[in-house]
């Protein structure tokens, strides 16, 4: 039984790969070859360094109470729809935003009060806000959505599916992320390729490329297997046997995968631990009770150790949860926003402290936005949402995209204030990839293929 399926699977994979290669008109092994090309053009000495940090907000972050309508007309509509979920307008005065490019129709927006730590970064021009961004296959009008007359992202409104859609741009059956796709093209510029894609928050397909492998550690750094080089239960023989058992090549695929992970854990820990130990303590304070801050602090430490780790181009992944607020919204949402704001503010300050603020770009991501309508105690699964891009190279202090109409059954609404996105995640990825130094051709063919459905590709929020 199993053998038959295996042969079948191998045949399918062969066909799949042939189709991919055929579509791009190239022969294998394409990625390695391209990687060298990008690396040669991108890497320019030890001062040359760039990193992307994906901050994933698991559960679907509510847009309405993250970037809140503030001009009196829009606020009134927001308050009427949101009812008990609405943030009182007087609480928004201190975080009302004064963007460098005003929104049309006298629209103004405010950060949630809990996001106050991000306002100075916005005001200094290092934080940009993407309005109504989400997963799209192609530009889509409300009429097209209702008629289902254009391709839509599959399995809308489902957490796991939309998380993967966000992280992969829909490519390759959701098994390759665009972070990993970028790393494929740049990892040859890193002397230790294992450190090209690092997740401090568990498994994320965002970090998997064709060749790039996500390397995972905790906020405490990579753990070490105890007594591996010495004695276990008084015996050096037990220790050496352990090492042989857990690292030797295996022919069974699952066993092989397991031992590859374990061997990578041992080798990477040996390289990473001394590099991290040599990083001086930061002056920037981090809230020890904030899990996301702990992850970002580890990212900052890895960036500080970039020379020892031989890294010139890196992609990081961190995450925090608690956003799926069907209930308990008015206490839960401020709490999770506080976590995000404090963690991002500390991280940005650290990049300034390290002198790499213009070399590190962070961005938020989430499953989807939520309904603007209330269910009495919370909001339900939506689609488009608002997101942040932060860093010294970001042309911040302003909004990108269009402020959605504040209404139910309005021009941007697919039901109960679920936003039909007007910016796509692919456009975000394309813009960030260009900043990382990846060619337009490679971005469109290998990293975010859906961008070919969009005429406007680079959103223009990154400095050259």
């Amino acid at each position, binding site marked *: 039984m199993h*053998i038959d399926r295996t042969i079948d699977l191998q045949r399918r994979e062969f066909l799949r790969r042939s189709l991919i290669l055929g579509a791009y008109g190239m022969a294998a092994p394409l990625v390695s070859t391209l990687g060298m090309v990008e690396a040669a053009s991108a890497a320019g000495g030890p001062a040359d360094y760039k990193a992307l940090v994906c901050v994933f907000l698991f559960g679907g972050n509510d847009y309405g109470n993250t970037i809140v309508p503030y001009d009196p007309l829009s606020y009134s509509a927001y308050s009427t729809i949101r009812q008990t979920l609405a943030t009182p307008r007087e609480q928004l005065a201190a975080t009302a935003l004064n963007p460098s490019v005003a929104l049309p129709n006298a629209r103004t927006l405010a950060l949630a009060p809990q996001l106050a730590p991000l306002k100075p970064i916005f005001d200094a021009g290092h934080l940009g806000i993407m309005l109504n961004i989400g997963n799209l296959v192609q530009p889509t009008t409300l009429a097209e959505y209702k008629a289902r007359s254009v391709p839509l992202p599959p399995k809308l409104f489902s957490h796991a599916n939309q998380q993967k859609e966000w992280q992969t741009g829909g490519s390759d059956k959701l098994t390759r992320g665009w972070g990993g796709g970028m790393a494929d093209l740049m990892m040859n510029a890193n002397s230790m390729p294992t450190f090209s894609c690092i997740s401090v928050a568990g498994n994320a397909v965002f970090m998997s490329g064709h060749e790039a492998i996500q390397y995972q550690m905790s906020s405490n750094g990579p753990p070490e*297997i105890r007594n591996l080089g010495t004695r*276990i239960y008084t*015996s050096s023989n037990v220790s050496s046997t352990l090492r042989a058992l857990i690292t030797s090549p295996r022919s069974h695929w699952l066993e*092989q995968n*397991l031992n590859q992970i374990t061997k990578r854990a041992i080798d990477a820990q040996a390289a990473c631990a001394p590099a991290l130990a040599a990083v001086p303590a930061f002056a920037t304070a981090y809230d020890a009770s904030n899990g996301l801050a702990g992850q970002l602090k580890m990212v900052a430490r890895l960036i500080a150790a970039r020379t020892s780790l031989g890294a010139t181009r890196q992609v990081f992944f961190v995450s925090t949860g608690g956003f799926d607020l069907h209930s308990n919204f008015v206490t839960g949402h401020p709490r999770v926003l506080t976590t995000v704001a404090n963690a991002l503010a500390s991280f940005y300050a650290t990049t300034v402290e390290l002198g790499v603020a213009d070399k590190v770009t962070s961005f938020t991501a989430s499953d989807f936005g939520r309904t603007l309508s209330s269910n*009495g105690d919370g909001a339900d699964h939506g689609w488009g949402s608002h997101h942040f891009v932060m860093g010294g190279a970001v042309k911040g202090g302003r909004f990108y995209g269009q402020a959605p109409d504040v209404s139910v059954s309005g021009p941007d609404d697919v039901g109960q204030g679920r936003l039909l996105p007007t910016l796509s995640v692919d456009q975000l990825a394309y813009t960030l990839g260009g900043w990382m130094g990846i060619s337009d051709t490679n971005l469109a063919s290998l990293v975010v293929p859906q961008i070919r459905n969009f005429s406007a590709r680079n959103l223009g929020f990154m400095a050259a």
Partner: protein
Amino acid sequence: MEDIGIVSTIGYAKWLDQQFARPLSKPSAWAWIQTQAQGGPVSGGQIDAAVWRRLISGPDQLRQRVVLALSEILVISAGQLDGVSDPTSMAGAFWDTLEQHAFGTFRQLLEAVTLSGAMGAFLNMRGSKKVNPRSGGQPDENYAREVVQLFCIGLVELNPDGSSVLDRNGQEIYTYTQEQVTAFAAALTGWDFNLAAGKKQQDDPAFATRPMINNPSQFSTGDKSVLGTVIPAALDGPAALAMALDVLCNHPNNGPFIGRQLIQRLVCSNPSPAYISRISAVFNNNGKGVRGDMRAVVTAVLLDPEARLPAAGPASGKLREPIVRFAQWARTFGMTSSDGTWQIGNLTGSLGQSPLRAPSVFNFFEPDYVPSNSTLGDNDVTAPEFQICTESTVVVYLNYMQSVIASGLKSSTSVCAPDYSGELAYANDAAGLVARYNLLLAGGGLGADTLSMITSAVNNISVSAATPEAGLKNRIWAAIFLIMAAPDYLIQR
């Protein structure tokens, strides 16, 4: 070892029958939690002790194993029970609910889960209200969506062999739309905890064991629908729910959707289409005209030729999940708690997984997970447990087992320790000791090279003639630890 002897005497099927016949052991998880001292180690959200106690010391090991599997399909997360004053007791009652219905019909199981206070709190059916025309407030959609997507049907139409039904354009066919979720949510309104009149949760702790009740004043008026089937306005809340569950539990996806996941939890990650078809057929009809007979389904999953014959091929088997490894070790060596408090705790940080502690309703891992960027990914091989197998978790698991195999789990007041006293007699003979644990832990699945390497390492630990016990213990620990680290143990085939 005793059970292996019984099975070899009476055969698999009769052993299963004996296991099915075992009564629910007392005290249940909820009842045991009530006996623990307030403010003691178990209170304050420590559901873990109650569940580990069931998994490790329950005399009904088949039921416990199936309940663990069900808890990863009908998922709650004990740390995320909204509006519950004692989530420990509430989660304990949920475990009891799964125990009570594990071998009944799927329809009964789904109703019990749907009306459990724990699920009501976790996915917010509790407190979901009809449309409020004044505020525009809408029914909560959380349970309406997840019960369809994750608990009984899935996102796309399935054939009995688990493959997707395709339309004429070769596209998958969705089982529902967002509009249908919204309409269905109205049918699930009005439910709340069943508290004695005028009592607070703290004053009526047994409410956690009672199904939720419907408050007619918060139940939506008018017709509702479930997946397009109209639920007439005349039906009250309980009748509307019953009709909705009848529709959900008669969907052709039930067999392949639930059957495949039970196979994955209990047998292998990549069952053949024919295996899934056989389970779907049993789900649809147990041979006596009963649909969703879980006892028959579990029997079919475990006795299928594909489960019983040695699996071949490089994609066979499954990665043993960390909870199963730990519980298996603890059961095999008769772990006891020195003071009965079972202070094992949430082992997420130590094993990478702990029962009832999934991060969301999507479980610890998803049934379709394919590891990217590996031979598995290149060959599209599903391996759900690898979703939580990372460079970090492989190391913390090894470190934790290295410690607890020798020392047990110590707290300031007690210890949960294995009993190796009966093992000492085997430890002089390294080859015999390793062979014994190959059978007990790995089902005889270790390869010849692994056996030889471990035997050699164990044999290398000297045993002093004057004071043999220290050396014998080191041999026992080393044999267990090296087996539980070996890839041919961790991949169960």
